[in-house]
């Protein structure tokens, strides 16, 4: 059998008819005609990873008697057998049924998505990429630097989506990631590091041209080297309660771990409990829970040059931009179609009206689950970073995570960062090493009292968010301004 999309599409649609005829209420299929990846790592100038990957196959879901069955295969001549397996899985699942899954009203859609790209990274010769990365590595060399790591990752996917409602989506996904890091032991023998990952102000395109834009990547080599030198000469952050100013390079993870994951509806409903964990949010809290101060405005956003922007999710819903937390009050969550009815039933009222377009799968062989998209904090009215520092009597500015550990319901957290700048009486006074801070989610967001303006807002990507069983690694984004939190526990006592 010819396995080109022109043949796959009718074969899949025939199976939809067969599945509906077998009593299924819904069926869908994702055909990955191409899932290409490239992974390059320079470690102390040595090319330690130089890999090109290619995946191709199909994943299908059927919904029968309110239960999901999923199956995947790379054998594109066995699509019928793959649907049979999904059907058998759904039938087995239906033997122990809870709240029946329901896709709600049919939403047939036809659409296409192409991310904004000037230069497709897969069209750039490997030698050119290696020269670019090697030049960065060379610029990171310094007598104070013990180890250097420079990486680039590229992904290109051509995904066709069809479902039994008549939806047909044809989309490309293209993601570009880059990172550089310098490390050295300090005088106590403890390893210190400073790094930067490819980021942006949310504008622009997301091809190879993004990586080579010095504003967002290569131009930071000298800065991180210089800051590493400062860290190596610094003392550890003394423990104590003080104000914490998070730069976007740290703020993105704070949002990711204590807002993003906590607002995934599958976690809220208990479907991730045994692996990733639950949420401190319950369905009935949507619309009323005070999640943070009035300064907190958080949205699931659409930012064109972000790995969290994909046009249509993996059940064919067009990605949309909506508020999650409005002036500190939780107003919506990250969801897919099939869980809305259950959330509303459990809340005893309508708390979610439409899909949060967050059904995402990491590969053809994984089933879509609720994932983050671009979980952003809206810029505030409190000026620039310098304005916020000027307003701070006793605090620290923190940047870039080193470690993170979060309670299973996302109710508390502990973060370590690469660098802290002490702020005393409105001025940055010195650098501290080994900064950590910890807190309880609602109390912490309740202490948010300054949010920087648009000039402080930066888009950071997360290339490796893990969730789900079977396990899935997902790419997404966070647009974050500078944020200040009051009276936070910082530093370690020993």
């Amino acid at each position: 059998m010819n396995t080109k999309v022109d043949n796959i599409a009718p074969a899949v649609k025939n199976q939809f008819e067969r599945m509906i005829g077998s009593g299924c209420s819904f069926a869908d299929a994702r055909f990955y005609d191409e899932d290409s990846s490239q992974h390059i790592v320079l470690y102390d100038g040595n090319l330690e990873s130089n890999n090109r990957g290619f995946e191709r196959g199909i994943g299908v879901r059927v919904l029968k008697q309110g239960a999901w069955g999923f199956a995947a295969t790379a054998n594109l001549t066995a699509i019928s057998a793959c649907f049979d397996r999904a059907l058998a899985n759904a039938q087995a699942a239906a033997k122990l049924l809870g709240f029946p899954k329901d896709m709600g009203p049919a939403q047939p859609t036809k659409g296409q998505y192409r991310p904004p790209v000037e230069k497709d990274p897969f069209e750039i010769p490997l030698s050119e990429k290696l020269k670019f990365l090697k030049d960065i590595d060379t610029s990171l060399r310094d007598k104070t630097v013990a180890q250097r790591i420079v990486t680039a990752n590229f992904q290109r996917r051509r995904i066709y989506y069809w479902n039994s409602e008549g939806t047909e989506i044809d989309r490309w996904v293209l993601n570009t990631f880059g990172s550089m890091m310098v490390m050295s032991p300090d005088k106590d023998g403890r390893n210190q590091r400073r790094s930067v990952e490819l980021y942006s102000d949310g504008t622009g395109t997301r091809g190879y041209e993004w990586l080579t834009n010095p504003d967002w990547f290569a131009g930071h080599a000298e800065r991180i080297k210089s800051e590493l030198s400062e860290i190596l000469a610094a003392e550890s952050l003394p423990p104590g309660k003080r104000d914490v100013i998070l730069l976007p390079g740290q703020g993105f993870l704070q949002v990711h771990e204590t807002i993003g994951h906590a607002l995934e509806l599958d976690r809220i409903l208990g479907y991730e409990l045994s692996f990733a964990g639950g949420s401190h949010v319950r369905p009935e809290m949507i619309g009323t829970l005070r999640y943070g101060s009035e300064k907190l405005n958080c949205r699931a956003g659409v930012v064109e040059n972000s790995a969290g922007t994909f046009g249509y999710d993996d059940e064919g819903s067009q990605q949309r931009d909506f508020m999650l937390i409005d002036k500190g009050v939780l107003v919506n969550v990250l969801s897919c179609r099939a869980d809305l009815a259950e959330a509303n039933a459990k809340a005893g009222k309508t708390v979610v009206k439409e899909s949060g377009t967050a059904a995402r799968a990491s590969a053809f062989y994984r089933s879509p689950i609720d994932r983050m998209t671009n979980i952003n904090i809206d810029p505030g009215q409190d000026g620039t970073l310098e304005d916020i520092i000027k307003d701070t009597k006793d605090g620290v500015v923190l940047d870039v995570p080193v470690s993170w550990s979060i309670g299973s319901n996302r109710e508390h957290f502990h973060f370590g960062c690469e660098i802290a700048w002490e702020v005393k009486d409105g001025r940055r006074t010195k650098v501290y090493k080994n900064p950590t801070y910890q807190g309880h989610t609602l109390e912490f967001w309740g202490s948010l009292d300054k949010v920087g303006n648009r000039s402080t807002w930066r888009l950071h990507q997360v290339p490796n968010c893990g969730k789900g069983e079977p396990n899935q690694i997902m790419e997404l984004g966070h647009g974050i301004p500078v944020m200040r939190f009051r009276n936070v526990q910082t530093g370690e006592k020993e």
Partner: protein
Amino acid sequence: MFEDRLRDLLISGRNQARKKGINAEFSFHREKSSLIRLGNSAVALSTHEELTRLDISVQQGRKVGSSSLTADITSSEQLQATLDQAAENCKAALGKDYEPIFGKVEETVDDSAGFDPELENFSPEAKTDLYAEVVKALKPKGKYDFSGSWSSGSTEMYYITTANDNEAYRRLTDSKFLMVLKEQNRKWELSVERTANKTGTFMADDVIAEFSSLLPIYEKNSGYKTKIGRQRVLFGPQAIAELLMLGIWGGFFGRFWEEKRAYTAKNKFGDKLFDASITITDDPTNPNVFGMPFDFSGKRRRPFVLVEKGLFKGLLYDSMAAAKYKKQPTGHDLSNTDFVLAPGNGPAGLEAGKKLAKNALYIPHLHYTHLPDPTKGMFTGSSRFNAMRLENGEFIAPLFSTRITDTSPSVFNNIVAVSSISVSQNESSTYSRRMPEAMSVPEYMLCDNVRITDVADSF
């Protein structure tokens, strides 16, 4: 034995590479995976994947390039295209400043001892039935929701290189069962785990009995909020496996040690690192682990000692770190190791461990751990399932979520007792591919002076 069709295909690829004078390594991975996810006391998802993956690495002098294919690998053309891509990457590569080690299968291995055809085809219905039985027995007894996952399937791994004609093949089955009981209002969570490489190793009655033994403490007592500071902790199997992994990550990787980034960096072999009750090996012959017989540089894996009676004995070198630092590779070009923390002299059984501990925190699971400072072996993580307060050797209350931030050297030096009984702890993952992995750990480990750094008001 590996299927003839695929074996012939891969050997023909090796022959093609040899004809062209290309040094190539071929790693093949095939999985048949099934998984049931339980959520809200019902099956939330039932999946099945049949996947084949081919990884080819090409080395010419100091240059290395690789290529991976996840598709229906049936033709020599696909294999050739993947080999060509790897060769092209190698050609464009930057040469390393050291001589890389090229893979070579030390001796032919054909190991299907851990394969059970019944477990490979273990039906989703059978899993659903067992879950249903447990839910039916326990749900009426309280406001409980059940969640969990049950993964089972088979994995085949085959590795050859152009360096010689030897072949390394492994086929095994594995199963990982987890069930979580959550109280709807107070949100405490209990879990039961099982691991197996054959079917029929446990029944619903076992799971019901284990939950039932834990429930009274949680039902009858409110949450215990412990104090911040150093305390005695009785760790259970999952937490011990987590502590073991964190300890190995921070201290025993050759690259990190060479780069002075390991907490053992100032130590030499023979130095005392831990209490004399601590012996750590990577031992594929241990019956509690899945036992990977070779690695993906072709090295035959045999028991490898890291710590013996508290003394520093070994470091893990994959072929890349070994080449760079001019050491011998130790069989660690793989992600699924077989770590073993040897049993101690402590009395057998958790009950005996409780009596010995007297007043302590019982923390059998550590959730979401991380290493804020590997150079000191510092880790952090919080308690989760089945955690309780012990007084006079008896469980008296469930613990609120409790954070530990301590160092591996401190924990492994403050040993009071290590159980003389070992258990298997399943650490398998399915990120990108099925990778069965288990550790053998003592059923309990009692430690003093464990640093508690935060306590929540909830579970």
